[in-house]
Structures are given as C-alpha cells and as structure tokens.
C-alpha cells in the first residue's frame, strides 16, 4: 500500500493537538470538523504505526563510501565482541 511519507512523530502529535483544540472549541463548521477528524485519525494511525516497530534497527558505521555516504552494517553485539577482541590483543579496550 503506498503510504504518504511518515511525518515526524513530534509534528504529528502537534498537529493532532491542534485538531483536538479546534474540535473541542466547537467554533469550526461541521464540514471542517469532519475533515479534521479524518486527518486526526490518519495522524493517529501514523503515530501508532511508528510505535508498532517491534525490532529496533541497529547498525554499525564501518566507514564512508567514495560519495561520502555512510557505510552501515548490521550490528551484532556478541559477534563484534569476538571480532574486536581478536583484533585488539594488546590493549584492553573493554569498559
């Protein structure tokens, strides 16, 4: 399903609060109220969708490409422990 680009959580919440104020104020027309309600529901859905991310995306920056973009690889805690320990035999970098 094509989704609109997710707006920042904070922005979504701020917009939502504005809609709530307008609706609770009761000063806007019924048509506007309905439109805002729909917008509010869409915003809430987006917020919930962002919250529903179950798995955190964790990467490790390994360097930069020639273009200057970051090179990221999946970060695996235990695996990297082994690797780094093997590499740094002299100094104990662990804290």
């Amino acid at each position, binding site marked *: 399903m094509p989704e609109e680009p997710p707006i*920042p*959580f*904070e922005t979504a*919440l701020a917009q*939502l*609060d504005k*809609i*709530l104020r307008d*609706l*609770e104020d*009761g000063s806007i027309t*019924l048509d506007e*109220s*309905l439109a805002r*309600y729909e917008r*509010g*529901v869409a915003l*809430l859905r987006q*917020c*919930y969708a*962002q*919250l529903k*991310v*179950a*798995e*955190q*995306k*964790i*990467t*490790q*920056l390994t360097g*930069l490409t020639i273009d*200057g*973009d*970051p090179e*990221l690889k999946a*970060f695996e*805690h235990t695996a*990297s*422990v082994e690797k*780094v*320990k093997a590499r740094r035999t002299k*100094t104990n*970098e*662990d*804290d």
Partner: protein
Amino acid sequence: MPPTNATVWTVSQFTEQVKTVLDECFANVWVVGELTDYKKHVSGHHYFSLKDANSVLSCAFFRGSNLRLKFDPKTGMEVFARGRFSFYPQQGKAQLYVEEMQPKGEGAADLALKQLKEKLHAKGYFDPARKRTLPRFPRRIALVTSPTGAAVRDMLQILANRWPAAEVVIYPVRVQGESAPAEIAAAVRALSKLHEAKRLVLDAIVVGRGGGSAEDLSAFNAETVADAVFLAAVPVISAVGHETDVSIADLVADYRALTPSQAITALCPDRFEVERDLADRTSRLRFALTNRLVMSRDRLDRIADRAAFRRPLDRVHEHAQALDAIAERIEKVVCRRLERSTQQLAAVAARLESLSPLNVLSRGYSLTRTPDGTVLRDAVAVQPGDRIVTRLATGEITSTVNEAQ
C-alpha cells in the same frame, strides 16, 4: 699591565672555559622557584626567570622541550624545573636550559585539567544558554562508544524497552588509551558532517562509556573532544559513567547523563506512556467529533422547532389578515370621503335650487315680458293696448294693457 706570571684570557677563551666548567658540574639539575616574566616567543621558545626571596635565575625553555608541557606555565606559579645550567657567550650570561617543568603543589595533570576548564569556560563552551534541548521522539541516534563494552549493551537494552522506533547507529571508538580522544573527536565530527550533508540525519549523539577510574576518563577531558562536542551539529549527550568526576565532555555536552543507561532514559520516551497518550487522544478525538455532531443536531432541532418551520402557512395567513385590515381601512376612508362629497353636492344643489327663477314663481311671483321677450320692470315701458306675456309657475297668460301708471 697584569703581572707577567698571570694568565690572560681572551673573552672567548674565558667564556668557553666557564661554559665547560658549568656543563660538567650542572649537566642535570632540579631547581624549584617562582616563575617570573614568563614570555612565549613567536619562535615557540619560552624565556623566563625563576626566583625566590633573594635570587633570580634566567631560564630558556626551547620549543622541542616545552611542547611536552602538560600545563600552561604562567608568571607567579611555583614550579620544579629540570635542565642543564650553562653559559650563553653571546649575551655573556649563565642560564638554565630547561628540559622539563612540573608545577609544584598539584600534579601536572590536575593543573592541566583545571587550566583547560578555565580556557574552555572563557571560550563559552560551558554556557548553559547554548545547550540544546533533546528531541522528544528521536528517530535516529548515534552511539559513539566502544562496540564491545557494557555501556553499549546497557544502552541497547533500554532502547529496546523504551523506544524501539528509533534507529541506532553505533560509531565504534576506543574510549581509553592514547588514541581515544582523537577517535572520539573524529567520530563526533564525522557524524556531524554526515548529518549536515543529510546523508545520515541524526536527532542526537550519545558519547560515552561505562564507569571507570578517574584516569580512565581522561579521553573525555581532552580538548579535541571538547571542540568536537562544542561544534556538533546535533545535540550531544555525554554518558561517562562516573558520578563523582565531571569530565569536560560532560560540561560541554548539551545534556550530561550520569550513566549510559540514564542517557537513553533521558533521550527516549517510554513507548507505553506514549501509547497511553495516543489512546487518550484517540478518545478525545472521537468524543470531540461526537460532541460536535450532537451540537449540530441540537441546533438543527431548535431551528426545525421554530413556528415558521412548524406551520409554514401561518406567516401567509398573517399577511393576508394584515392585507384585509388595510383593505377595510381603505374602504372606510373612501366611503367616508364619498359620503362627504355627496353631502356637499346636495348642499350646492339646494343653493342652486333656491336661486332658480322657477322656484320664485312657485311661491306666487310671476314674470312679465313684452312679446319680444324684454322683461318688464317698469310700468312706463308699456302703453295701453300693448300685448304682454306673463309667465307663471305653471303656464303663461297673454294679456292686453288697459292702463299703465
């Protein structure tokens, strides 16, 4: 003239001799005293004097040696200086060529830290006004720390519990040892640059490590780290797990966390709290709209309830009635006027009637005329024998005049 048995030196010979003697006796000495007249020449050499209550000693501290200084020497400081005492023939004076200098009293490292703090403070690095607020709902966080330490494990653990929505980028660095300051500073700089170039947009950078002894935290006291944190394009949280010592990174950072775990707690909202807030807003939204609908319905009902909508012909009838009343009034006015006109007409007619000659005749008067129609008003106008015609109310009499007087 000197006596003939006396040895006479040229100046150069003599100073050369003095230099040799001094170099032999004072190749490596420690002198304690107060720094005075401390001057840093543009060449990088330092020139100053050491003094105590009674004496003064000239000193030169060349660039190659003074680069290793761990603190910033200033006039008035008590120091230990080590070097060789020698003669400087060109100026004809003996001086101490300093190779090493240490502050008296506190250790060089402590003094250096104190001095660095003063310097950075003066540069405004610790100004509370420039501290940025942390994002409320971070989307991407960079962790500059050892990828193998307890710190990163703790932080990831809390991130998973509190705010899995955030993407985490780990920038692996050494957090202790000679290269640590440069690595940490380079990491903060690189991340800033990536953020500014919009190649890796970040909401915050956490710089930290787990707890250690004061010495272990030295990397976070380095000026290069302070500079990088100060210039960072995104808010920086320092998370140097050491509650008693405040590192320079702590002072420069936008937020100082006592531990790496606390850094994440400060940076990320609790997802369950956020969910509760969202649920609250969901019900408020629904309630607000329902309320709005009820309000509109009520208004509609009130409008529909008005007499005009309830009995729409009432208004027409009202108008009709008003029209009737007006018509009646008009009729009355017209009638009255008509009546008055009739009366006036009758009066005029009566007056006219009274003036009519026939009316006079009817009361017994008569009108007499000659045959040619001339009305007779005087008897002399006729002769006996003339014919006259008398007009009565009804009919005419023709007569002949017998006598006129």
